[in-house]
């Protein structure tokens, strides 16, 4: 894990409100695993003053790191105005990523919205045939095409409004696909908004399919030092206990999380 200033190679809008940031950091690129993240300081001042967490969305040869992000507030707005050549302080790679040693015979990668960011890196890294990559978006104009971030991978799309691909939620599409693969040992790796993760929790239980999910919470340090980033763990006997998303996660087994009290 390092903290370093990097030079931005490119920072381009790939679909409205979504940007692909590329910078050079051989140290980071060498160490990074899918599901890990970095803490980015978007400016030298104090507005905003905390770093922002972003998943690593991929690496390229010669130590290039990719981050795919959505503009949702002040920090991402400032980031989106950066240009090639600007400097940026990054801290990472942080957290525990997806275990890619043996994710099961057939791997379902499920992404919702900007949750696709770490999944591009995952699909790049697992490098296996038996993968089904499903991605849900609200509308077709929000779709992030793997090609646009330099990744070769077929993706099945679901849109809430039916404007492209499957009409409905990506978790419904997933259920259809699971049924097709009933005879194989299956695993699900996912990242997306809370409702999607909750739906996955049901699916995972219903079909008894192991499922790993990447979580998001507010973070101050990203290092396990501030204790700010907790989610409630699914523990027995109503005993409250917490995981630190930055250190214990961001990737968790779906059964580790208390989805009813999130």
């Amino acid at each position, binding site marked *: 894990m390092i903290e370093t200033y990097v030079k931005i190679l490119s920072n381009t809008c790939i679909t409205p409100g979504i940007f692909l940031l590329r910078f050079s950091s051989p140290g980071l690129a060498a160490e990074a695993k899918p599901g890990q993240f970095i803490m980015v*300081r978007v400016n030298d001042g*104090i507005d905003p003053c905390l770093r922002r967490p972003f998943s690593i969305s991929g690496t390229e040869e010669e130590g290039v790191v990719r981050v795919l992000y959505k503009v949702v507030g002040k920090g991402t707005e400032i980031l989106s105005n950066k240009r090639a050549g600007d400097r940026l302080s990054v801290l990472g790679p942080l957290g525990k990523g997806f275990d890619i040693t043996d994710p099961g015979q057939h791997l379902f990668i499920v992404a919702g919205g900007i949750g696709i960011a770490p999944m591009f890196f995952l699909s790049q890294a697992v490098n296996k045939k038996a993968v089904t990559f499903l991605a849900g978006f609200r509308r077709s104009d929000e779709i992030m095409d793997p090609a646009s971030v330099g990744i070769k991978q077929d993706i099945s799309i679901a849109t809430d409004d039916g404007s492209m691909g499957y009409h409905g939620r990506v978790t419904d599409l997933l259920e259809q696909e699971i049924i097709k693969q009933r005879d194989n040992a299956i695993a699900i790796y996912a990242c997306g908004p809370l409702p999607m993760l909750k739906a996955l929790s049901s699916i995972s239980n219903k079909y008894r399919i192991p499922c790993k999910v990447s979580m998001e919470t507010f973070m101050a*340090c990203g290092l396990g*030092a501030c204790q*700010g980033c907790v989610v409630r763990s699914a523990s027995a006997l109503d005993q409250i206990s917490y995981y630190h998303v930055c250190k214990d996660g961001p990737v968790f087994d779906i059964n580790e999380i208390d989805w009813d009290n999130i």
Partner: protein
Amino acid sequence: MTINPDISVLLSSLELKNPVMTASGTFGYGKEFETLFDLNRLGAIVVKGISLKPMKGNPPPRIVETPAGMLNAIGLANIGIEGFLKDKLPWLNTLNTEVIVNIYGHSINEYGELASAFKGVKGVSAIEVNISCPNVDKGGLVFGKDPEMSGRVTETVVKNTDKPVIVKLTPNVSDITQLAKAVEQAGAHALSVINTLTGMAVDINTRRPRLGNISGGLSGPAIKPVALYMVYQTARAVKIPVIGIGGILNAHDALEFMIAGASAVQVGTANFINPRATIEIIEGIGNYCIEKGINKIKDIVGSLITARQG
């Protein structure tokens, strides 16, 4: 020109190689920052507040950013004294810097027990007594706002320890000098000023507080002017050394505190913004001394000139 300024400081019997410490709760147990810089360069590491039993802390969300600062309502989540002694202290002891333990009790007795538990423990250089955490229901703040109770907690800790006792004061009071004097009289060896200011934030869409605990503690640059004034007041009210805390981001900020009366400083929220902040502050303080021809950093402590100019 001063080539090699002496930036060591003395807090009662505790000598620090430089005046820069990490503030409790913002630097974990030290190890989290291990790969980012040479921790041996720090004046001291103040670890996360430790209670007798492990504490789980408050429901999330626990942090929210605010203008030039942040609110936290961690609720003193910590591994408890046993966990600390077993899992954290041995590693901390491999470092060549002072380790200060921040303690938090739910009653005067618990403070006493905590102090006793560290008696004779090698590698713990001082005890910082947190009587000022705004994020726990019972205990802490009840003591912390009342001079008499603050004095009694201090007395108990002093009686039960062989180490220098630093008492950390809350800024959420009408007159911090009353607290400071009560705690000094009760035998404290130094004061930490300040803990966080109580604040809150609201989500206007859900109409809910942004923190699970409703309110939290405000830290970061936003509070620097308030902290600085309280350090100035406190340092003039007591004879024991005062450690300045609150919104310190860089050497400039640290020097403001020292000139206003702080014998040393602690860096909190800045560790999140710039994990190397402490190191840059140590270097910056040295450079300031060189530039200004100051031989000993001790000479600038409380050197504020308040006489009218002209």
